[in-house]
């Protein structure tokens, strides 16, 4: 065991510690009250997030299966932040839930799996992380125990992941057969531009594309997002997606450089398809969760486009965009979570004239949607701009134009929601919703993030220095 084991493995140890604390408190006979339990957990998650800023080191563990460096620490901390914000936002829903501890145990296990995915330097480690991150999520998707759709979502998630895992494992076995190794660096040296190698890699690649829900592997997304409780939906759409993108970047950069010409073309086609299909399906959606699901599909398309550039600039732009995406999407889902916790309403028409009684929430949701649409001065604009700029080095202007045109199309459906919020209240509209203090804090953090991350260049410049 290397002497700095505890520092290198710090973030994973933190999560494990939290898991044990939760399990022990579950075993006690007398359960604490819901509010104090939630406060305790939120404090633990906050400490976990803050710990990411101190005592970081670079190195590898477990016979080079697990690698960590400042970039990985930063990526993991983005996920920590997402988990914290989601937890703050969902207090209202969880307060009345019977299984608070189970919810957190499952969610944090999934987070742990994501950390292993990000830090993996070995195909097996990546696979273990992937499964650890998916299976608990399927269980937690079922947590709206009274709604049948929730159970359906869980079933769909687990079955769909099973397909992708099968393909992924097939890819891994082929890669092992071709190269005789499971280590990223070794594979990178031994892979060649041969049909068999390419096929093996592509199978593996598709497994990851499923996780980021790129078209045509996206079909599970809308149903699962719609059916799951909002907290789980936001976790799926933000944390789970971000982790998969980070892992995909790792694989492309460290394992598959010899095949870069293949995945470059494949990524361009898939990303264009993803952007267009995501947008077209989002255009006429009436359910706001489904709308955000499809819009998140198209956002991933932009990420993949930048990934195709295969440059450090592209990677920086992706990580930066994900940070912004965490803020924007969580601000949107935060508002939806509050509304659905009180009203069980998720269709767009229910938000008609929402502004009349809920000014703060309306502004949060509008700013989030503006950011998702990429309107300056919100951070989303800068995120998209950098993605397109880094992508423009490797692609033709036709592709760039199609992508940019889709930005405008997406503007249409985001503005449609904003327009509904601010519509005239001729008919009845939702009455004022009480915003608990934790949710308020989370929303303010998200909105501040949206407004400041772009204009202040610190975050982007920091990511650039990490490359």
């Amino acid at each position: 065991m290397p002497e700095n084991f505890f520092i290198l493995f710090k973030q994973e140890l933190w999560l494990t510690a939290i898991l044990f604390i939760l399990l022990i408190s579950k075993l006690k006979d007398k359960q604490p009250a819901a509010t104090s339990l939630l406060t305790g957990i939120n404090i633990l998650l906050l400490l976990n997030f803050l710990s990411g800023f101190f005592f970081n080191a670079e190195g590898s563990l477990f016979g080079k299966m697990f690698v960590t460096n400042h970039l990985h620490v930063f990526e993991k901390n983005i996920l920590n932040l997402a988990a914290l914000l989601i937890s703050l936002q969902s207090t209202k829903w969880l307060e009345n839930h019977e299984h608070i501890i189970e919810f957190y145990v499952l969610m944090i296990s999934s987070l742990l799996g994501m950390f292993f995915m990000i830090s993996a330097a070995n195909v097996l480690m990546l696979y273990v992380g992937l499964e650890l991150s998916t299976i608990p999520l399927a269980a937690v998707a079922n947590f709206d125990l009274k709604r049948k759709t929730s159970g359906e979502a869980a079933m769909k998630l687990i079955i769909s992941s099973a397909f992708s895992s099968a393909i992924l494992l097939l890819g891994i076995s082929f890669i092992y057969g071709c190269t005789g190794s499971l280590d990223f660096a070794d594979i990178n040296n031994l892979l060649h531009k041969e049909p068999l190698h390419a096929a093996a890699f592509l199978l593996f690649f598709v497994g990851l594309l499923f996780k980021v829900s790129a078209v045509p592997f996206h079909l599970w997304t809308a149903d699962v997002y719609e059916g799951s409780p909002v907290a789980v939906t936001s976790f799926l759409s933000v944390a789970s997606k971000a982790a998969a993108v980070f892992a995909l970047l790792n694989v492309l950069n460290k394992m598959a450089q010899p095949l870069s010409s293949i995945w470059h073309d494949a990524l361009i086609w898939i990303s264009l398809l993803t952007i267009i299909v995501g947008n077209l399906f989002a255009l006429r959606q009436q359910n706001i969760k489904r709308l955000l699901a499809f819009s998140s599909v198209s956002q991933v398309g932009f990420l993949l486009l930048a990934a195709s550039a295969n440059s450090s600039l592209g990677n920086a732009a992706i990580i930066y965009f994900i940070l912004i995406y965490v803020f924007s999407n969580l601000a949107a889902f935060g508002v939806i979570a509050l509304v659905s916790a009180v009203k069980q309403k998720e269709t767009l028409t229910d938000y008609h004239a929402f502004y009349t009684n809920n000014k703060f929430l309306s502004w949060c949701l509008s700013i989030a949607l503006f950011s998702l649409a990429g309107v300056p001065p919100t951070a989303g604009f800068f995120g998209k701009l950098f993605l397109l700029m880094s992508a423009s080095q490797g692609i033709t202007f036709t592709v760039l134009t199609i992508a940019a045109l889709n930005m405008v199309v997406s503007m249409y459906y985001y503005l449609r929601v904003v327009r509904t919020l601010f519509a005239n209240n001729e008919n009845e509209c939702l009455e004022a919703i009480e915003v608990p203090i934790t949710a308020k804090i989370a929303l303010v953090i998200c909105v501040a993030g949206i407004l400041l991350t772009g204009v202040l260049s610190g975050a982007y410049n920091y990511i650039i220095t990490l490359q």
Partner: protein
Amino acid sequence: MMKELLYHITAFKSLPLGEVGGAALWIILLPLANFILLGLGKKYLKNMAGVLSTVLLFIAVVIALSIAYHYFFIDGKQNGVYQTITICQAHWLSLSPTMNVELGIQLDALSVMMLVVVTFISSMVHLFSLGYMKGEERYANYFAYLGLFTFSMLGLVAATNLLQLYMCWELVGVSSYLLIGFYFEKPSAVAAAKKAFIVTRFADLGLLIGILILSFNTGSFDFQTVIQSLTNTQSSSFISITASSFLGMSTLTWGLILIFIGGAGKSAMLPLHIWLPDAMEGPTPVSALIHAATMVVAGVFLVAKLFAVFAIDVTALQLVGYVGSASALFAAIIACTQTDIKRVLAYSTMSQIGYMMFALGVSKYGGEEGLGYSAALFHLFTHAFFKSLLFLCAGAVIHLVHSNEMKDMGGLRKLMPVTHIAFLIACLAIAGVPPFAGFFSKEEILSATYKNNKGIYILALFTSAVTAFYMFRLYFSIFWNKSFDNHHHEHHGEGTITMKLPLLILMLCAAAVGFIPFSEFISSDNHPFHSAIHIGFSILPVVLGLCGITLAAFLYFKQNDRPDKIVNSIQVLYKTAYRKFYVDELYLFITKKIIFNGIAKPAAWIDKNIVDSCMNGVASITTTISATIKNMQSGKVQQYALYFFAGVAVLLMAVLYVWK
């Protein structure tokens, strides 16, 4: 890590322009401060909000004027050439080791002129709004939005690089969106705001791609670097950008055309003009500021800023010329048929911006050949005064009669004498009657056009006669025609002194600014030159203008049935022009019928019917099975699996096929 995250907000390094150089920063910061103060403190400020922001704006005007004085008369000129001076610059982003983006303020003759125009018109509009918006529920919000707009517009004209320009460009779009939709209780206002936003976003996309093309070929966003490397025909970036081509045009031409599309969207050029008339849903002072004097001329500013590059590329510049002249005529014809006074003014704005665009389009670079360039910006300058005056007068009229329709007006000259005189002078200015401001700038445009392009010259002459006609149609219909019938509503006169004062000041400007020898300050290569008015040459346009005025007087001075008779005799033509040549309907057809029905609807239909109804279909057959199993064992997931595996197979086959 926190330290790095907080990171550097680098110290501003400032270069002196006399004593006032550093003060340029304040011009931009004051409206921003206004926005932030009003945004945060609107609960406490209440009615002081308007006064506070007006005072801040007037301070900005004073600074802008003193900077202009220093720049044009004391420090700005060296060896007979106006210099480009970077006042301050802060490092903002490093996109790559070689590509940095700065935020800062750069002054050249063009920017200084624009700073004066924007702050001055904005302050007049602020002053007018004090009375006009009084009693509005969201009074403070209104002034906060005005502050945001002024800030971003000033940031735009003082930008040091293309990316800063683009950011501010989008920001003015956002503030325009907020202000058009200010009365968001009205569905039409919300729809207009959305339309303006989406149409200009489409155009901005062109701008963005154009900027990316130019910047990647020159390796910089900085205006000076981009212009220098693209005007030097020996430089490697010039050779590479002209060598590569796409669809028969060089990359440079594409880049410039895309940039012009961005400008055409903001400046409401054909065919991207459809948002401007609808934007009149906003409060009238906003129309005066944003949709007449400042934001809509941003496109002209953009082309002028990059004019050195445009001058090298004949194709792009010709496009600017033809689009400009077509828009000028097209809008003038529509303006003759509209009955909403704000819409008439909107189309007249579009037409006048068309003038500026084609003046740029026919211009050449350098010396007296660049007369068109100076003339375009001269017209921008004079137009800002008389058009904002027209809008403010229209605001005063609407304030009194509570309607935008011409038929509700008439005979107002006795009720509002100040407005009447101001409106008359502005009309004379726009019609090009000497000695008012519009005469001089239009004269320069026409003589520059006459030298370089006879075809556009003839169109322009005709347009100026039409302009005189529709402006005086408006004037006579509002102030003469019939006697004003004020039985059924009490009127409250012309409004407070704060509403009259801006009218008077702008009236003086509209009468006087034409005497400024503009080409001695603004020229394409910053070498001042002298341009004279040729009396013989200006006879024809003035006579044509007077004919237009006479015709308008004949038809609209007194109430009569001649206009109706004429309308009846050219029914089809009139209707076509009245319906704005059916351009809006064309857009609706394309978006609603083709994009929605043709593409998005089927996509949603597949999602809803095929995907969902497969499940429903299976479900209805298996009603006997319990609900849980029904939902879980639907055909749906299998179908997903099918798509999934098909996707894998297609991907594999595609790659292996490409291999061979």
